[in-house]
């Protein structure tokens, strides 16, 4: 990375093996019992393993990213400013957002731009007096896998907790919550090139490259933090002990995908390394601090790539932008 002070990244993937001890980051609910069930996934070799939902990891990243966007001075829409999970879909009833367009949402909200949104289509209703609405959407730039524990490398301990009911009549309740520990394979893919753009038609909306770089830095910082400071369910009293983080970051510098390969396979770093070429680079890390350093270097030196269709577009300041 040091040979080029401004590394253009088209797409990046984190292929990691994370060790969490005594956590309950993602559960499958109680199903009407007093036992909180862990999330489980059947693997193709017929072993059942522990899992942490990708939804929870993605939500954690979005919350962190919103803070970093605010700190970087990136715009946020009124919904994302208050953590409304509907994002742009929450704006449609506001008087200032009646003529909502994809371009406006992407330009005016860095979180809707990064994590995607969906404003559903609606037919006109003469009785209710509502007009027809076109579907507006952008797919997320960050894709998360489920974190899956390596078979034979995870364990579960049932812990008895007491919980006070909501009213006097409910009294004290006994709850069984499992504390789980294990080594988890986790992949995250970040399509950097899509920052500030429509990724269906490949139109650049945020033409101010400096604003795209601010958004990109905030996304990377949130990605770094989400792995070195785990979050999810039950962290108030069962914050996981993070005891290991290793793997490889794959970087694609021009059009194409950065490979993802799961740490469920023991030779995943070797397989990823074998896929490197002039536009696909590997940055392996063997500890949490090595990962932190690599991510810091990306934050300091990388920029979101410019798609070949936008050559000459994303250079100067955005004359229509407010970023």
């Amino acid at each position, binding site marked *: 990375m040091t040979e080029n002070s401004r590394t253009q990244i088209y*797409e990046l*993937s984190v292929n990691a093996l994370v060790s969490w001890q005594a956590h309950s980051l993602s559960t*499958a*609910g109680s*199903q009407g019992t007093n036992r909180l069930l862990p*999330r*489980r*996934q*059947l*693997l*193709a*070799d*017929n072993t*059942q393993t522990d*899992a942490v*939902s*990708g*939804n929870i990891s993605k939500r954690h990243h979005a919350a962190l990213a919103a803070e970093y966007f605010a700190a970087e001075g990136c715009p946020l829409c009124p919904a994302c400013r208050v953590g409304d*999970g*509907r994002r742009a*879909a929450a704006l449609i*009833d506001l008087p200032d957002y009646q003529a909502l367009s994809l371009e406006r949402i992407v330009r005016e909200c860095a979180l809707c731009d990064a994590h995607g949104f969906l404003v559903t*289509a609606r037919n006109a209703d003469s009785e209710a007096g509502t007009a027809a609405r*076109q579907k507006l959407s952008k*797919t*997320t730039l960050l*894709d*998360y*896998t*489920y974190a*899956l524990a390596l078979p034979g490398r995870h364990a579960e301990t049932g812990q008895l907790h007491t919980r006070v009911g909501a009213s006097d009549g409910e009294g004290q309740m006994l709850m069984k919550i499992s504390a789980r520990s294990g080594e988890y394979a986790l*992949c995250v*893919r970040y*399509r950097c090139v899509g920052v500030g753009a429509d*990724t*269906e*038609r*490949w139109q650049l909306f945020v033409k101010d490259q400096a604003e795209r770089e601010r958004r990109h830095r905030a996304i990377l910082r949130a990605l770094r933090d989400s792995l070195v400071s785990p979050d999810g369910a039950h962290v108030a009293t069962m914050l996981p002990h993070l005891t290991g983080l290793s793997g490889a970051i794959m970087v694609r510098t021009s*059009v*194409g*995908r950065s*490979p*993802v*390969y799961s740490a469920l396979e023991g030779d995943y770093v070797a397989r990823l390394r074998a896929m490197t070429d002039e536009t696909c680079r590997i940055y392996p890390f063997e500890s949490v601090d090595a990962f932190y350093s690599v991510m810091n270097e990306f934050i300091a030196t990388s920029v979101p790539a410019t*798609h070949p*269709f936008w050559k000459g577009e994303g250079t100067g300041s955005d004359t229509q932008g407010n970023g």
Partner: protein
Amino acid sequence: MSSMSSAPVMPAPGPATVRLALIKTGIECYGLDTVREELFPILRSAPVRVRPPERVAISQHLLRGYKWREDKAKRRTVQESIMVREMAHASGPMTVYLQVPQAYERRLSVVLRAVGYWGQSSSLACCLGVREAPPVPGECALPLTLLNGTISLRPYFSCLATEFRTDRLSWNELVADDDVHSTKALRLDVYIWPMVTEYRQGTQKLLMRVPLAVSAQ
């Protein structure tokens, strides 16, 4: 069949998912105009066959879902409910067979290599290679209408999958512009997969690839 609150999984993507992924990725690689004018006429009509991975394990997950509703007083309230999502874990590569004219081979190879997911964006995938080969007989999913009663369906996994309504579908039928209302571009067919259930416990099941066998009758 999936709905807002329930989404069963298929062992591998169906033909319409393959076509749509190639169109979406094609736009990224070659631009909207090139895909609409040159690649789309090929992709809408190219025969597609999908050979599923050797083993696919399916687990059902309960997720928390939120829905915003408007009451009679036009107040918007959030409702919490349970959503069911199936997740699949596969072992072995999936193969997509796409029959295209030789003149398009190079460009479609680039597109195939650039596909990062099929269907759901959380189903991360990467292309291991593109080469010329005919489909392995009996190892690809087939629509029920093509089987013509020659195969005993009983042990095999079957589900509804989407396909383009016609091989002459127009671009505007598929990609609705601002002024054009979307039309029914896709149809549902019953597909038979060369997979049988090897193991089942509760809501979890393990499917194993077994070639579709011609019935003895």
